[in-house]
């Protein structure tokens, strides 16, 4: 057995990782941001999962233009933090959960989502910055992340990226996959799913630096209360309102789709779960070029 107990949503700005790695996190520029994650770190300690399914995007690190998978699931035993051009982040290796990965891959592909299976992959800031924010600083050799992580990479670099609706539906398929897992020792696995990226930001052209806090706040509100409606938002609205890189936000819908209030009658799931419980919500502008948003939801 395995069960999703909570979902976590956060931006994954590379400069946040750099600020932690270079010990700049107490500078006035960064302090308000890290303060917003204090409660999250306490919550993580009190609610340590057995596995995290971490939805993120690769930023031209593991995948160059020779191959661009829309959805890719890491199935390895462990993953190395990547050298993105500035040298690798000084953080621990990421341990995987190959058995649960393999189970999710088989189940989700059988539910008509064509995942790419990745058995070797370095992971970039998209994956390690959320871990640092939620788990605090960890020594690269003597430290460790609190639990195994399954990297789930989504293409949001090469347009067209998957639609919000497809992301929400994929989240539902991932939940069904996780709920059908039988662990070898018979114990129930406590699984969290994290959706990362965003919020509003644009890194290119004369419109670089775009921030739309009203959009971001409304997005989080709808993420909590109206995910089915939010999933219908077309790509161009993300780009126009939240910047060309703001389209990363579709990844949040994968995590939201995996929450139990979105059970689906079409799959024989007659009883919808209760609305999730909101544990924490936080906004901050700016982190480098980006509006930072963060949300924690627990299944009721």
């Amino acid at each position, binding site marked *: 057995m395995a069960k999703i107990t909570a979902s976590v949503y956060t931006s994954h700005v590379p400069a946040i990782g750099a600020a932690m790695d270079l010990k700049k996190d107490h500078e006035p520029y960064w302090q308000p941001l890290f303060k917003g994650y204090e409660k999250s770190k306490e919550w993580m300690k009190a609610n340590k999962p057995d596995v995290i399914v971490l939805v993120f995007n690769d930023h*031209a690190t593991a995948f160059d*233009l020779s191959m661009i998978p829309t959805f890719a699931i890491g199935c390895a035993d462990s993953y190395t933090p990547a050298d993105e051009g500035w040298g690798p982040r000084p953080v621990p290796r990421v341990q995987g959960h190959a058995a649960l990965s393999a189970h999710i891959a088989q189940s989700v592909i059988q539910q008509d989502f064509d995942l790419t299976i990745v058995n070797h992959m370095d992971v970039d800031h998209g994956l390690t910055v959320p871990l640092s924010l939620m788990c605090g600083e960890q020594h690269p050799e003597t430290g460790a992340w609190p639990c195994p992580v399954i990297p789930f990479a989504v293409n949001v670099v090469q347009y067209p990226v998957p639609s919000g609706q497809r992301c929400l539906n994929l989240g539902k398929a991932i939940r069904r996959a996780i709920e059908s897992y039988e662990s070898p020792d018979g114990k129930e696995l406590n699984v969290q799913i994290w959706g990362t990226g965003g919020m509003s930001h644009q890194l290119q052209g*004369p419109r*670089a*630096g*775009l921030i739309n806090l009203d959009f971001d706040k409304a997005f989080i509100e709808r993420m909590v209360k109206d995910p089915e409606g939010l999933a219908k938002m077309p790509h161009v609205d993300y*780009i126009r*309102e939240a910047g060309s890189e703001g389209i990363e936000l579709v990844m949040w819908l994968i995590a939201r789709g995996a929450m139990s209030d979105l059970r689906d009658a079409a799959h024989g799931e007659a009883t919808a779960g209760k609305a999730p419980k909101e544990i924490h919500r936080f906004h901050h502008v700016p982190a*480098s*070029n980006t509006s930072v948003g963060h949300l924690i939801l627990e299944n009721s």
Partner: protein
Amino acid sequence: MSLEKPYTNIPGTTIFDMDQARAGYHLNQFCMSLMKDANRKRFLADQRVYLDEWPMTEDQKLAVLAADLNRCIALGGNIYFLAKLGATHGKSFQQMAGSMTGRTEIEYRDMMIAGGRSADGNRVVGESGDAQANRQPQGHGTGKLLD
């Protein structure tokens, strides 16, 4: 069948779609090669010689040599690939993004600290915001990543 591209009327923005990716394939793969330290050193030692090893267009090579990121993007570059070029020159994402606005590093940083660029006036070409073509450059920067 013509493709649907509803994003072409957003000012100051180039979407890295299939057509852009096709035009920029070698430019972006050149950037990827800079993930390796040995290649970064060789590129910095003689940029022209290194670029000539790649089947890029002359315009793309000149844009890289000029460290003109707007031009690189117009010719098919993508910011996450160009970030490897920026890193090779020791520049951050904020310095890269700022260079494309025609603001100086300080001017751009100040704009971000003040809450960033507003979407108002910058949603559709022809409005009056600061990302519109008729309002470039936005500050006292050179528009290039290197001075």
